[in-house]
């Protein structure tokens, strides 16, 4: 066993190792996976001077409570997260987007994400993870990736394989903004739906269901009437696709989604809005707004420039 490790006092609700995910495997039925909120994933690695594809811990709602054993190391947390750093002599409230040093015996207690879902923890070093198809990302449904394809368990050990000793403290000012209007492009089965259904889709509010997870975000609200067929011949899916199931409720495909599906696609979330979409906790109210492809491309370019500017500030 490595000399540096965390003891997991409390695992949190759904804490997994993630990186950029596994491309080019959909044809085998293997999901993409990877960190849900890519911007916060990149920022947490940059803060601790890691390679941007380094493994991080992703947690949802309640995060883990970890006890550190080993030589001095730094860590950072991104997202909108409440956490404490406890040592033998002190207990402080931590700030996101700021690095902290911890020593042997110190604890990080991540109680919760605030009005959001996902948070990220990274170290000035590397978690000892296993790779499958070039990625450490854990997919609990397919039992693929680090930690034997499982989420973090209480009392387990997280080993650290490498520590970067030349490390300087870093912080940036950044506040996550909450999205209320999800911008979408018309889906390939848009005309399967009645005029009333389309009108409702863009005018009415939808509520994020409790049954949402890394695979999909289920929405509740007005049932969308399908006038053509509530099934299509199964075909490929991508993240952000909004399918409407037989009962008329929309479901948005997220990073661990099944690779093919047979429900009509009413719309697709634009790439620029994906990071903020996944951060909507259950109970959030959202609306959809239709835009054109060229606008979506421009918005993505702007979003990526913002992310780059943030990374460059670190």
């Amino acid at each position, binding site marked *: 066993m490595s000399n540096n490790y965390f003891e997991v006092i409390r695992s949190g609700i759904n804490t997994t190792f993630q990186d950029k995910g596994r491309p*080019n495997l959909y*044809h085998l*039925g293997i999901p993409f996976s990877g960190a849900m909120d890519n911007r916060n994933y990149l920022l947490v690695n940059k803060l601790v001077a890691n390679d941007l594809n380094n493994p991080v811990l992703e947690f949802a709602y309640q995060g883990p409570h970890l006890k550190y054993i080993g030589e001095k190391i730094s860590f950072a947390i991104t997202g909108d997260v409440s956490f404490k750093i406890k040592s033998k002599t002190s207990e402080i409230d931590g700030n996101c987007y700021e690095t902290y040093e911890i020593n042997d015996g110190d604890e990080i207690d991540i109680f919760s994400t605030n009005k959001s879902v996902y948070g990220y923890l990274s170290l000035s070093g590397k978690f000892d993870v296993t790779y499958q198809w070039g990625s450490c990302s854990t997919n609990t*449904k397919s039992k693929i990736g680090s930690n034997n394809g499982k989420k973090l368990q209480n009392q387990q050990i997280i080993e650290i394989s490498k520590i970067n000793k030349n490390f300087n403290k870093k912080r940036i000012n950044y506040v996550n903004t909450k999205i209320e209007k999800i911008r979408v*492009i018309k889906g390939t089965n848009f005309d399967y739906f009645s005029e009333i259904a389309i009108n409702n889709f863009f005018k009415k509010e939808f509520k994020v269901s409790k049954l949402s997870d890394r695979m999909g975000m289920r929405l509740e609200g007005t049932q969308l009437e399908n006038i053509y067929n509530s099934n299509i*011949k199964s075909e*490929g899916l991508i993240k952000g696709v909004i399918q409407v199931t037989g009962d008329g409720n929309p479901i948005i495909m997220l990073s661990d989604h099944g690779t093919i599906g047979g429900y009509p696609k009413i719309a697709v979330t634009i790439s620029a809005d994906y990071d903020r979409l996944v951060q909507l906790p259950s109970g959030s109210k959202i609306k959809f707004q239709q835009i054109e492809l060229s606008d979506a491309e421009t918005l993505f370019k702007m979003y990526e420039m913002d992310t780059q500017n943030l990374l460059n500030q670190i």
Partner: protein
Amino acid sequence: MIKNILNLGDAALYCDFGQDINKETNSYVIKYFNKIQKLEIKSINNITPSYNKLIISFDLNKIRFNELKNLIEKIQIDDEDTLKKKVIEIPICCEEPYSLDFSRLEEKLKLNKEQILKNFFKKKFFCYMTGFIAGMPFLGDLDENMRIQRLETPRVKVPKGSIGITEQFANIYTFESPGGWNIIGNTPIEVFDNSKEKEPNLINPGDTVIFKEITREQYLNYEQ
């Protein structure tokens, strides 16, 4: 051939090969898939073949829809792009407790168990695609008299190795998963092996699958 290319969102191409679902259409989908995969276009991050569609998703930081669409439209499939086909035999046991839906099958198909098994085992299945869950093959086509709708209420857990049928298709649940297909039997062999990075799937699009009936005793003593 590709009939039409639309955008699926801002970062994917939706290539439509036509309405019909048959081996010929699907063979074109697979040929395109193989050809595009061989080109190793760096901006592409997934190519998903299905019965009659090919979805190509890409990195919006590297390329845009129109540019990639132009690239894909120029691709020609020639006769040399043949399919590599394998014939795979899958042993299955259709006795209790593996044949979960036999009474439903007998009732809905109006055939007895013997007739259902005879129809099922005489068939050479064609693998149209793999997916939904890792390694799950979609096989066809069942004869008209063997076609049945999905369960009205899908199972929360279908046991690993289950063979399901619905409409003209059969599939294999590569691991325990929710699902609504009618379960006819179960195979003791691993159809998806995630320890194999290179070829984790036993069955791939274009392959032929033959099912071989085994007894419960053979099932229990089966060695991989």
